[in-house]
């Protein structure tokens, strides 16, 4: 086993240092799912330790065990060399372990100060801890460059600052080891760089950082050591300087992967989706899309880049006919689309040749309690080929679905299984299959690979490019810059409800895109 070999070299901490955290022989089951299999992880004090793995590899489970959010079924945790019994987050906090979760654990209508105080109030009355926390926040802000206005309300703050509050929460509680779970998912590249700079400062002051990510570039950039997990087990534990992105990717997936598929230049035809001065508001009536115009031509992939929450969601929903537009025009294959009346529109659009892979497959892409075959025809259930008179033809639907599951590599390929029993990647492949197999001329795709493992990403990207090569128009909205760069023939950048520029993927740099996404630079 390479795993044991790789681990052996790391039994003693480097440079005569100490282990900050050791997890030894951890096993964890969720029902019949073996989420952690005999996992051993050792993190040296004063280092940045990366943990990579695909979705469902067990990274978050392991961290939640270290943080006391879940309890391991078997195994031992040592902190500073001493065996620790961590049954609740309070135990972990007391032992100097802090965690910044992927979804922020903040009370949105509380102020920064109240969030920091929560659970560490320091007395029965709030007034007792308030002054102390105020002073302490100021000190932490100065020492680490983490300035935040303690009296601002969380929901008014941008995500980058919210994350800062999470880090402050941990430091305020005296964290010596900081665990960050996918911290860069919501950040622009510049914000991520700032975060990494800060993590280095922490390390240099002797704190320990555990960074969980699926972005290999981040691992290479910032970590000292990296542990690779696959299907619940540790498969490698390496010094970062001795490895490479390609090597790590292979370890994660268990086979060679091609990062960033090759594709032939696009051969675009006529514009089939035309958007003119579109304005869309969100559920609270707040304008989210503020005058957007663009075209998508047959035979090209247009990518919309942007930090999440800049109007992409509402734009996609308006184009898909599930959210009324406030004003503006949408033309699909030359025909004006009635945008102001929701409801019937999505169905009409489907008939006109629009496919839509929604951003949030859990909420909009699938009905979780329905079988795969039911999900596979949803939205097209009126089509003649699924019907026997006025009844649905179950056998036919199952047949079609079975074929698509084979064609799109959905595993297990059993059309009778309920949607929730598939993994994220396979659910997404099922949604993609449904939308593509109903032969749209225009395909809208929101976050095509969110929560999807590398193998499935590769596959979905290949299918999208194949659609384009077949002369269809594809509009991709994604917060993953790598994905936008790899797929698009043209990139539009959205910021604050407007398209702030168009760039070509050949000439664009990540830095330039990042600045545009932050609303700082215009397209050149």
């Amino acid at each position, binding site marked *: 086993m390479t795993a044991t070999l790789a681990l052996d070299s790391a039994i003693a901490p480097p440079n005569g240092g100490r282990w900050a955290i050791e997890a030894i022989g951890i096993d964890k089951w969720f029902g019949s799912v073996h989420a952690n299999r005999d996992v051993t992880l050792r993190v040296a004090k004063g280092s940045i330790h990366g943990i990579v793995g695909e979705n469902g590899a067990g990274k978050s489970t392991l961290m939640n065990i270290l943080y006391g959010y879940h309890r391991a079924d078997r195994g031992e945790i040592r902190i500073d060399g001493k065996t620790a019994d961590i049954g609740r987050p309070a135990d972990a906090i007391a032992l100097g372990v802090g965690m910044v979760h992927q979804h922020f654990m903040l009370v949105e209508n509380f102020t920064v100060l109240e*969030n920091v105080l929560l659970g560490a*109030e320091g007395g029965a009355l709030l007034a007792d801890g308030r002054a102390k926390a105020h002073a302490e926040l100021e000190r932490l802000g100065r020492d680490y460059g983490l300035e935040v206005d303690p009296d601002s309300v969380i929901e008014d703050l941008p995500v980058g600052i919210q994350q800062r509050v999470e880090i402050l929460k941990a430091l305020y509680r005296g964290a010596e080891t900081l665990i960050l779970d996918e911290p860069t998912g919501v950040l622009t590249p510049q914000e991520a760089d700032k975060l990494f700079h800060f993590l280095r400062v922490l390390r240099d002051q002797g704190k320990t950082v555990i960074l969980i990510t699926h972005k290999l570039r981040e691992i290479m950039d910032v970590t000292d050591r990296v542990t690779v997990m696959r299907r619940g087990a540790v498969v490698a534990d390496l010094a970062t300087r001795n490895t490479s992105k390609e090597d790590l990717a292979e370890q994660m997936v268990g086979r060679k992967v091609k990062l960033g598929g090759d594709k032939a230049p696009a051969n675009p035809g006529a514009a089939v989706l035309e958007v003119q001065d579109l304005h869309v508001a969100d559920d609270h009536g707040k304008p989210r899309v503020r005058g957007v115009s663009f075209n998508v031509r047959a035979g090209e992939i247009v990518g919309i880049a942007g930090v999440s929450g800049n109007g992409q969601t509402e734009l996609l929903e308006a184009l898909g006919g599930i959210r009324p537009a406030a004003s503006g025009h949408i033309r699909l294959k030359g025909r004006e689309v009635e945008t102001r009346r929701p409801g019937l529109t999505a169905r009409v659009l489907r008939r006109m040749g629009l496919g839509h892979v929604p951003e949030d497959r859990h909420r909009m892409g699938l009905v979780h309690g329905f079988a795969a075959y039911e999900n596979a025809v949803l939205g097209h259930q009126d089509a003649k080929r699924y019907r026997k008179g006025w009844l649905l033809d179950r056998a036919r639907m199952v047949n079609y679905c079975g074929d698509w599951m084979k064609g799109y590599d959905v595993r297990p390929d059993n059309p009778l299984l309920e949607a929730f029993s598939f993994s994220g990647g396979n659910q997404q492949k099922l949604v993609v299959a449904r939308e593509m197999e109903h032969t749209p001329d225009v395909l809208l795709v929101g976050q095509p690979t969110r929560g999807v493992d590398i193998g499935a990403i590769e596959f979905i990207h290949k299918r999208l490019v194949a659609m384009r090569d077949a002369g269809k128009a594809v509009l991709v909205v994604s917060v993953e810059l790598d994905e936008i760069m790899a797929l698009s023939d043209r990139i539009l950048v959205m910021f604050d409800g407007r398209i702030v520029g168009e760039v070509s993927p050949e000439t664009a740099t990540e830095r330039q895109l990042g600045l545009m996404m932050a609303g700082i630079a215009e397209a050149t």
Partner: protein
Amino acid sequence: MEDAFLMIVTMASATLRVATPLVLAALAGLFAERSGIVDIGLEGKMLGAAFAAAATAAVTGSAWLGLLAAIAASTVLSMIHGFASITHNGNQVVSGMALNIMVAGLCPVLAQAWFRQSGQTPMLGQQARFGPIELPFAAAVAKVPVIGPLYAQVISGHNILVYIAAIAVPLVGFIVYRTSFGLRLRAVGENPEAVDTAGVSVSRLRYQALILAGILCGVAGAYLSTAHNAGFIRDMTAGKGYLALAALIFGKWKPVPTLLACLLFAFADAVQIRLQGVPVPGIGVIPVQLIQALPYILTVFLLAGFVGKSIAPRASGIPYLKER
């Protein structure tokens, strides 16, 4: 002029009397809902408490023992609700409603078994009830124009539970906004995960909130059967628990606005009693049923139209399950 003033004084006094159980129950609901538990069981807890208070007072002759019994009964009912909805993640509305139905049936049955007075408790004598308290100087200032009668007849002369309700409002406000417990309480109703990851037990907080709700509902119930009335009668809460819930929503889950909402509902009730059988100029006598419906009609109108945006605690109604 003299008459109109006297009427105002009488109505204000009646408003306070009617508002007391509403205020107590609404504050109980405030604790529960701020912690993330929809407390539709206020009605049942109050009714159960009313019965426990009346039964105990009837047997022991002590209103105070009745109050203790009421608090105990209501807290036990609250814990049943908590066991179903916190420990076992049951649906909060369904389990709360079950509580209401159970209590509505159980109390008359027990009353019948123990007292054999067609499902009621025996009429309580003065000693077994909370009597009016005259505040200091009430008699002395009574003669002073305007302020005198207001102090002597509106502020003074209520039973102790009315004053407890009055003190409860600032007290609850203090607990919710100025204490660490209050911070955690508000947080757990908004984002229980944040509380859990901050090292505080979500279940424990919610149970604590339900205990406080139980105590307040207990006082409200005791008020109904041993202060406002002189004994327990079947369904004597008559929807006050739901009205309190409406006041809580109308008051946006904040103590003072909730108090004002309760006073408004109570005032509508006082008007309603006043209007019964009195001919209204130009209209004549309005049917009693219509007048009695007034507070409820008001509720519907207020909740439907005038509340504006009343945003509930975000996690309210959702059992807390750890994500994998």
